[in-house]
C-alpha cells in the first residue's frame, strides 16, 4: 500500500475539504484518516490516504492538489508518508 499525507494549511475557507475530497474520489484515492486543528488562527488539516488504486502518477496528483490549493487561497501539499514515519518513529 502506498500511503501519502495530504496537508491543507491556510485561512479557513468554505468548501476546501469538499474540493480536496472530490478530487480524491475522482482519482480512486481512498481516505484512511482525517484530522484537523487551528494553529495560530490557521486552519491545519491532514489526511492519510491510500494511493494504491490511483491511476495517475504521484507527481501529477501532487501538482493537481497544489493547484486546487492555489485556486482556493490555501496551501495543499501531498507527501509520501515515509518522511513523517522515519522522523517520528524509531
Amino acid at each position, binding site marked *: 500500500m502506498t500511503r501519502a499525507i495530504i496537508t491543507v494549511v491556510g485561512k479557513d475557507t468554505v468548501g476546501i475539504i469538499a474540493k480536496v475530497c472530490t478530487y480524491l474520489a475522482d482519482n480512486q484515492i481512498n481516505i484512511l*484518516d482525517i484530522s484537523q486543528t487551528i494553529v495560530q488562527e490557521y486552519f491545519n488539516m*491532514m489526511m492519510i490516504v491510500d494511493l494504491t488504486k490511483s491511476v495517475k502518477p504521484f*507527481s501529477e496528483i*501532487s501538482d493537481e492538489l497544489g493547484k486546487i490549493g492555489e485556486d482556493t487561497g490555501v496551501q495543499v501539499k501531498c507527501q509520501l508518508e515515509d518522511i513523517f514515519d522515519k*522522523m517520528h518513529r524509531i
Partner: protein
Amino acid sequence: MINLQEVIETNKMIEQEHLDVRTITMGISLLDCADKELTVTCEKIYSKITTLARHLVQTGEDISKEFGIPVVNKRISITPISLVGSSCCRTPGDYVQIAKTLDRAAKDVGVNFLGGYSAIVSKGMSKSDELLIRSIPKALACTERICSSINVGSTKTGINMDAVRLMGDIIKQTAEETQHADSLGCAKLVVLCNAPDDNPFMAGAFHGVSEADAIINVGVSGPGVVKHALEQMDKKQWNSGDGQLANFEVLCETIKRTAFKITRVGQLVAQEASRRLGIPFGIIDLSLAPTPAIGDSVADILKCIGVEHPGAPGTTAALALLNDQVKKGGVMASSYVGGLSGAFIPVSEDQGMIDAVEAGALTLEKLEAMTCVCSVGLDMIAIPGDTPATTIAGIIADESAIGMINQKTTAVRIIPVVGKTVGDTVEFGGLLGYAPVMPVNTFSSQRFVDRGGRIPAPIHSFKN
C-alpha cells in the same frame, strides 16, 4: 499512525527552519578509465560519468517532490584524478584537458559541482601528483563546476611540507587566474589533512580508492532546525517560572533529539536514491551545513547556546558540545555514518559568522581554535590579496598539525582576493555567499615553510 502535530512539526522544519538534504553525491570510480592516450582517457571518463549519473539529477528532484523535502544539490565525486591521469598526462596542460572533460560531463548530467580533481600526497608526491597540482590554477580558471582538493597530511603519515609549501603558491596562482571573479577559483580548492574517502560535501569531495565502483552518499543539514529547537527549549524553561536558563543536560538532549530527526530524513533520502538509481548506499554525512540564508546559520546556534557572537570566550566549548551532540543524535538515526560529520563553520556561507567578523568578535586565530573541535577547518575565509604564499603555507601547516595530532579531518579553504584588503568585502554569490576580508598575522613564516621535507607522524601514546 502519524498524528497531525507530527506532520505540522516536520513541515514547519522544512518550510520555516530550512530543513533540507544538502546534497546527494554520487561517488564514481574512474580507475578503469585510465589509458596511455589522453584522448582515450577523456572519452572513457566522459562516458562513465554520463552513463552512471544520467538519472542522478532527475532522481533527486523526484525524491524532493514526493517527500516534500528540498534536495538542494546533486553532485558527483570521482577518483582522485592524479591516479587516473598518471599514465597519460605529461604536462599540467594535459591535466587541464581532463578538467575540461569533467566540466563538460558535469554540465551534461546537470550537477552543479564535481569533486575529485585531487591528489593524495600526505607522504610523498609522485610526478603525476605534482603535475596535477601545478595544473590547478588553470584548471579552475577554465572550468565552472570542478572542485579540487589536495590531501597534504594524515595522522598515520605526518605532514608533507613540500606539498604544503607548493599549495601556498598554487592558492596564490589560482587567486590570480580568477581575479576577474574576486579570486573565486580558491573557493573551489581545499587543502586537507586526514581527508575521508567518502565525503559528499564540496570542495573536498572525492571518491577514495577504498570505495566501490559507484556509491551514493548523502549530506544532511539543518542548523535552522537546531536553532529553533533551542529557542523553544529556553522559552519553555522561561515559562516554567524559575527564571533559569535550561542547563547543559537539557541543552544537549535537545540537540541530540533534533539531530536524530534531521538525520532520519537524510537516511530515508539516501536509501530511496540508492534504490532508484540501483547504486549502493554509502554513508550519511551528519553535518550542520549553513547557507547565507537568514536563520540557516551555525553561528546562530552558538548564540542560542549563550555566546554574544561567535569568537567570544566560550565559543570553542559551545562548538565542541554542539558537534558532539549532533554526532550522538545522528549516529543512531543512520545505518552508516561517514564523511566529515559535524558542524561546518565557513565564514562567507554563514550570515552569523559574517556578522561576528564585522563586529570584531571573530578572528582567524579564534577560528583556528574552533577548528580543533568542529568538523572541518578554516573554511571560506577571504584574506588580503597581498598575503605571501609562505604565510598561506604556514596557515595550512598549522591546520594540518591540528588534524594530524587530533586524528581528525582539517582543511583550509582561504581566498587571498587579488586587489582587496582588510575592510573590503568579497561577493561570491549563491551558496558561497559573501565575506569581509579578514586580517592575517603579518609576521613571516618563510624560514619555517622553506625547509622542505616531511613532518614525521605523531606518537600515539603519552596523550597530553
